[in-house]
């Protein structure tokens, strides 16, 4: 199954870069090559969904060091490490720091393509969920203060009657606010509203 996405290959070896580019482009991905970490940091503009194929042993910055930097910078693109020889410690460290996979040279092409696909998928779903949560936050921001109060309480599990008591308004008012919230939040049920809250992390 082909899905489009961007692959950023960071390896100091020409042969590796060439062979990977040809094979991965043929699988439908956009491939960009970088000869080192600095080169990547200087030139790359990451477009998601993407995956970084990262060599461990590089002269300027090692793979682990780049990973550390990217983490600090808040970049969340998944990283697949490719390496000819690595110390077990390095491997463990890379996973601890959030690598999605580790593949040894010489590669099996099928295995590599599969790993790339999984990573791209993970990235895209993360993207989707990120986009969704942003959208929900925007919708919530468009609620009036009174509507936000009602919404919060409803999500917490309060019945309409209890909401009216708590806010010192009539239950008819509550009913009107509730329908307005449902319309604005674009949900058709209470359950969906709750799931929006959870997805976007509002007010919890």
């Amino acid at each position, binding site marked *: 199954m082909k899905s489009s996405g961007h692959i950023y290959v960071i390896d*100091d*070896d020409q*042969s*590796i870069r*060439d*062979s*990977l580019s*040809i*094979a991965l482009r*043929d699988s439908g991905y956009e491939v960009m090559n970088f000869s080192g970490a600095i080169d990547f940091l200087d030139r790359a503009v990451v477009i998601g969904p993407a995956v970084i194929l990262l060599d461990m*042993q590089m*002269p*300027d910055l090692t793979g682990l060091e780049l990973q550390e930097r990217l983490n600090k910078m808040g970049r969340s693109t998944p990283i697949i490490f490719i390496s*000819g*020889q690595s110390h077990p410690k390095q491997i463990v460290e890379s996973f601890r720091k959030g690598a999605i996979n580790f593949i040894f*040279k*010489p*590669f*099996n*092409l*099928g295995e*590599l393509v599969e790993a790339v696909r999984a990573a791209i998928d993970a990235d895209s779903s993360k993207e989707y969920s990120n986009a969704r949560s942003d959208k929900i936050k925007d919708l919530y921001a468009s609620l009036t203060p009174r509507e936000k109060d009602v919404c919060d309480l409803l999500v917490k599990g309060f019945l309409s009657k209890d909401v009216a008591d708590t806010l010192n308004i009539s239950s008819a008012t509550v009913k009107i606010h509730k329908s307005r919230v449902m319309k604005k939040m674009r949900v058709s049920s209470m359950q969906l509203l709750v799931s929006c809250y959870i997805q976007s992390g509002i007010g919890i």
Partner: protein
Amino acid sequence: MNATLVPAIFLFYGILSLAYAGVLIQFLSRRKDRVIAFWSSGALCVGIATIATIFRDPSNLIATYVGANGLAFIGYLLFNYALKEFLAIGASTKRILLVTTAAFFAYCFSLYFVGIFFESKYQTIFISTLVVMTSAYAGVLGYRIYKKSKINHAAILSATSFLNSFIWALRILLAASDISINAFNPSVFNSIIFVCIFLLGMFWYFNFIGLLYSQSNEAEQEALSRFEGMAKTLPCALYEYYLYPDYTSEFRYFSPSIKEIVGHSARAIMKNASLIIDRVHPEDKEYFWKVNLEAYNSGKTFFIETRMIIWDGTIKWVQLSSSPRGEDFKNVSWSGYIIDITERKTLEAAALRVDSITKENEAITLLLKEKERLVTSLLKANKTATTGALSASIAHELNQPIGASNINIQFLQKKLDNNEFSPELGKQILALLARDNDRAGNIIRSLRSIFLETREDDDFWEFNDALDSILEIIRPECRKNNITLSIQESGNLNLVASEVEIKQVLLNLLNNAIRELGDVHHSRKEILIECAVEGNLAMIAISDSGRGVPLELQDNLFELLSSEKNIGMGLGLWLCKHIITRHGGKLHYGQSDMGGAKFLIAIPILPNE
């Protein structure tokens, strides 16, 4: 003339002869001497014969006349035998007895028969003739003795004998002319003759004594002078040593040459034996007395080689040996010699030293051979070590082209499986495969060439090719460590040394530079290789931008295992210098312009044919 004169002479002569014989026989008891034995026997016979003649009785002719004359004849024979013995040409006693006995009987019978068949004058003639003959022979013998021994008495004896012959020849004449036949004839002629015979006889006896005395004197003198001559000229000194029961020593004789050996005169030593005995080296004294007393108590020959301290302090080696002069060895002197063997001992010691030096030389040769073997092993080990140090990067470097080829091949496979293969794609992939394969091949080739022992064209190889081969191996490591390699090649270079060994030197030096630059963080990481030609030498410099070698380690830089810090590096530098020097070149250390180490190789170039 008085008729009693001749008989009186006979008597006197007879008694004299007997007394003379008696005295001589006394000598014999002291000294067994055949000369004296025969002579005294002769005198005895003559004495008896002469006295018997006086008492001859015509009625008993045989006993007195014949017997007496026969005995006299035997006497003359014995005198001659004595003289022959003197000349050392005598015969055995048995033979002499045989001859004289036979002669006696022959003489007696002859005289008797002459007396029966002829006139009495012919008896006188017979007797006289025989005396003439024996006397003449005695004269000849005497002369020979004189010629041999130059003793005057012998000459006189000879003259006496010849005169005797002459006188008795006169008697023949007198008898033949009937003047005087009988010995006791009172005529003047006869008397004169017998007086002469008598005088000659006395002369004869006394000169023999003189001869004996001279001879013994001669012999004695000869022996003495021979001994003295020997004593002076022999390379050793002779001595006569006596050890008293209280163990004090005495030298009863010492030959003069002892002075040369110990510096004291023989006379001084004979007065004071401690001049020798106390001079034995203190360390050898105990052994000396042990051997001395062993010999003294057993009677066996004393022999020792020992040291002596001479009066001026020098030490000499001497050899002493002595034997007892009699069976009762504890109570007699011991005759011995002492000889200076210092020279021999020195030579022996020198020979031992030469021997041990030769053995040391052999040992050193063996060690050198072993060293060579060790160096060969080190060279091999060094190869492994340096390439081993680079093995990680070399392996990684090999992995890259192989890994890439793997992907390319799998990709190609996938395309073929999906029927998506196109010639352009094929070309593209093939090009990549070829390139990556070459890359792997080069590294492997370069590695192999380090380990190859010999090549057929070892004499002729290009330096630049060798350098490239080494760079192939170290480039991955340089890249890994971010080290820049700069090379300044010169034109074609053919070096005197073997390719494998020069590659090893380059590998070692470059490896060291990489180690240094990789060790510590440097702002600038650069290795510079420069090649140039100066005269008949190739100058190859390898410089790095590291910290350089500290001043205190620079002096011992090329010594085997001198640097405690880095044993591998220490070994490698020694091997590099060993290889370069072995080919007539030089390896120096200096400071590079980049601030780090600079190793300069100067090695002869192969002359162009």
